[in-house]
């Protein structure tokens, strides 16, 4: 009873603040999405999003998000957590608009450091490092940054349409994913990881396995036993992914570039055009479309959706693109696809949160926390009972994406200027920012140490020509795979056939087999070797 009352009062509050009367039967989404009701809802949403204070907080959100994305290591999780208390005084819709802006703004910003200095600012921009940084080394940082921004913009707009039109049915898909389906999806993802590598296949598989092994560190969910933590309490939750990625990519890059004194000139002397050429655009648009589709599809799945999407889109492009042989050497497709995918996934991850009240990642969990503090229990009823909140947020995402592209395209020139800063100034400051960022994740000096250790390991990998990307995929997917496999088997009481009798699960396993078949087929393998190993 009490809760009911709270709920109504906050609904009233939202109505009051936005000053637009809620239509009695808004959000009748179960019917055809293009009926007049849908347009009416959109109009309602834009009416709210265009109120000046909502525009203002949207701008603040995307600005902060871009900044956070650009600073290596300071992720959107830490930023949103720090800003939560600020939102207590705002109306629920304004709070959500700002927090959402930070989240997708960070997806835009995260690509900048990946491309310029090979440091993934966000987990989802690891795939962008692979080709984006190579493009920057060839003096094509401008087109790479523009490809990332344009891809993100397009994907953000399209995925928001998906959220608006198909949120409820899409959310139902997420519910179909039980433990066995997740396990099979992860197997598929790992099979895809072998495609990622552009050196020796054997090394790629070894790196995946190393990632899986590192993923076993930490507390076992089923028994509570601590594995390989050697009494170090910080290891009880496993090795932090962000610290590891920043070490393997960022520190390793900085250390190994100290060796090559001459390369610095090559880097800056060739800064060419800022905007992509006509040919770049022609090469970009298909990867952007495919990346968007991939991201929207995987983004709705709780867990590693966004990250799987960016890696998956990259792997897919590498297979289907006419320029597949350029991947890893600075192909613009290798930037456009994962960047579109991660931004689409960022928008799509709102679907399960808004329609079911189920968070698909930590940021969404924080948003739910923010709503709870406002007295709103996120769940299926939000869309019907608080159309202002739902449609206002969706409309603000379009506006926010527009703001981001307007902000980001002119900034490309400024970012590129950064590359002309002498390394003796640039690198130490990046190292300091990385250390601050990783420390702020959970106020733990141990995480800084992890980053440093993996920095050294990363240098060794560079010397051995081992790609860190498959390792990262193994580390992220391994624990989820184990957890879901064991859970599936516990539910079935030890019967492994559930993995094959459930249709979605079986389909992913078959797809994984086909993928491995393609990679391992002798004829293709020979071709693969001649194409990839020479560099």
């Amino acid at each position, binding site marked *: *009873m009490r809760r009911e009352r709270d709920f109504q009062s906050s609904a009233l509050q939202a109505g009051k603040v936005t000053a637009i009367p809620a239509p009695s039967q808004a959000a009748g989404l179960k019917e055809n999405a293009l009926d007049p009701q849908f347009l009416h809802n959109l109009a309602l949403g834009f009416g709210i999003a265009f109120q000046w204070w909502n525009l203002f907080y949207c701008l603040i959100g995307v600005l902060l998000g871009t900044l956070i994305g650009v600073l290596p290591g300071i992720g959107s999780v830490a930023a949103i957590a720090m800003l939560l208390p600020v939102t207590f005084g705002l109306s629920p819709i304004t709070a959500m608009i700002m927090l959402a802006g930070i989240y997708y703004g960070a997806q835009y910003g995260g690509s900048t450091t990946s491309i310029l200095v090979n440091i993934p600012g966000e987990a989802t921009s690891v795939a962008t490092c692979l080709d984006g940084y190579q493009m920057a080394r060839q003096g094509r940082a401008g087109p790479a940054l523009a490809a990332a921004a344009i891809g993100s913009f397009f994907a953000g707009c399209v995925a928001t349409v998906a959220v608006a039109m198909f949120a409820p049915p899409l959310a139902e898909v997420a519910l179909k994913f039980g433990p066995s389906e997740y396990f099979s999806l992860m197997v598929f993802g790992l099979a895809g990881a072998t495609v990622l590598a552009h050196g020796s296949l054997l090394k790629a598989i070894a790196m995946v396995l190393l990632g899986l092994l590192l993923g076993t560190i930490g507390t076992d969910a089923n028994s*509570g036993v601590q594995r390989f933590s050697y009494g170090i309490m910080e290891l009880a939750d496993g090795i932090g992914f962000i610290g590891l990625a920043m070490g393997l990519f960022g520190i390793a890059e900085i250390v190994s570039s100290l060796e090559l004194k001459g390369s610095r000139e090559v880097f800056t002397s060739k800064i060419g055009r800022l905007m992509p050429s006509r040919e770049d655009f022609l090469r970009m648009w298909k990867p952007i479309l495919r990346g968007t589709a991939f991201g929207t599809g995987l983004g709705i799945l709780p867990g590693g959706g966004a990250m799987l999407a960016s890696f998956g889109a990259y792997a897919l492009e590498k297979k289907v693109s006419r320029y597949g042989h350029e991947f890893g050497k600075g192909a613009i497709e290798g930037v456009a696809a994962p960047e579109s995918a991660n931004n689409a996934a960022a928008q799509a991850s709102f679907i399960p949160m808004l329609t079911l*009240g189920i968070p698909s990642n*930590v940021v969404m969990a924080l948003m739910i926390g923010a709503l*709870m503090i406002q007295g709103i229990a996120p769940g299926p009823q939000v869309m019907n009972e608080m159309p202002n909140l739902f449609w206002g947020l969706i409309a603000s995402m379009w506006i926010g994406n527009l703001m981001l592209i307007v902000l980001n395209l002119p900034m490309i020139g400024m970012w590129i200027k950064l590359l002309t800063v002498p390394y003796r100034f640039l690198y130490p400051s990046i190292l300091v920012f990385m250390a601050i960022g990783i420390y702020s994740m959970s106020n*733990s000096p141990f995480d800084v140490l992890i980053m440093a250790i993996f920095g050294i390991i990363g240098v060794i990998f560079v010397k051995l020509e081992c790609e860190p990307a498959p390792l990262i995929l193994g580390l992220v997917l391994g624990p989820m795979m184990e957890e879901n496999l064991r859970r599936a088997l516990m539910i079935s009481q030890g019967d492994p056939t559930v993995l094959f009798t459930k249709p979605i699960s079986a389909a992913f396993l078959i797809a994984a087999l086909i993928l491995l078949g393609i990679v391992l087929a002798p004829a293709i393998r020979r071709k693969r070797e001649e194409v990839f190993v020479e560099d």
Partner: protein
Amino acid sequence: MKMKTVVCLVAAVAVLAMAAGVQAQAYPTKPIKILVPFPPGNTVDIMSRLIAPKMSERLGQPVIVENRPGASGMLGLDLLVKSPPDGYTFGAGQGGNLCVLPHTSKNVPYDALKDFSPIALSTTNFLVIVANNSQPFKTLPEMIAYAKANPGKLTVATNGEGGFPHLGFEDLRLMAGFKYNYIPYKGSAQILTDLIGGQIQVAMDGVMAPSPHIKSGRIILLAPTGKSRPALWPDKPTAGETVPGYSSAGWFGFIGPAGMPKEIVGKLNEEINRAMKSPDVADKMVAGGMAVVAESPKYFEEVIKRDHAKYGKLVRDIGFKPQ
């Protein structure tokens, strides 16, 4: 001579009293830190962030919330134990890491009964037993009958092996006498997804996450586990009404390192309780399925002792091996 001694004594007492007065007056002279051993967004984190600005306003010093998540909260509490007991660092504690973990984990770095100064017991909560909506049972007695008719078949999910809800359900199993298939999870979101999707039959969890789904009818509330019927569901019999004597309720409060001066504990207790009871904070706690209690340090200490003993016995009774 005698007179002199008395004067001396009086003077000494006066000086001591003044010193104490000065100390109480002086505190706080620098920022105060609330150590939250969980990530941002967690219940105790929200609680701490809500009261911090209110305390800061009254105490005239910034009150900062610092998250030190890790190892189910043990990492943060270990840091708290190692902080100076001067009142400038205190932390958020709950039933799980003070009364359950010490019995279920082998590596707890602190002694929950000796290493802390209880400051204030702030909120209590209860759990809910919920079921997927297409099961042959719709009430707790029916679920127990189903579990007895199909021994070991009923799939039940809770958050973390040996955690607070898991032990709560084990207690129910022991008292009602049935068998089930336990499926451990790492978080309410996953549990809910699989419960709504029908991958698992029953779950026991906090009130916050499941309640919107109970409202929408996607999952069925079998029973709340508090001692009495909650205001949220006045018509729903509690688990204790089906299984007499059964209840499972958690609590959240604030603790400091052992050896904190009594006056500082008293001062913090007063300010924490005042902030917790302020209408806007209390309302938000109630919305999250909690009740604000705002109890004294002495009472809190007894609750910790009582629950520590209760879960120690339960862990032995169910034969759980500490990991």
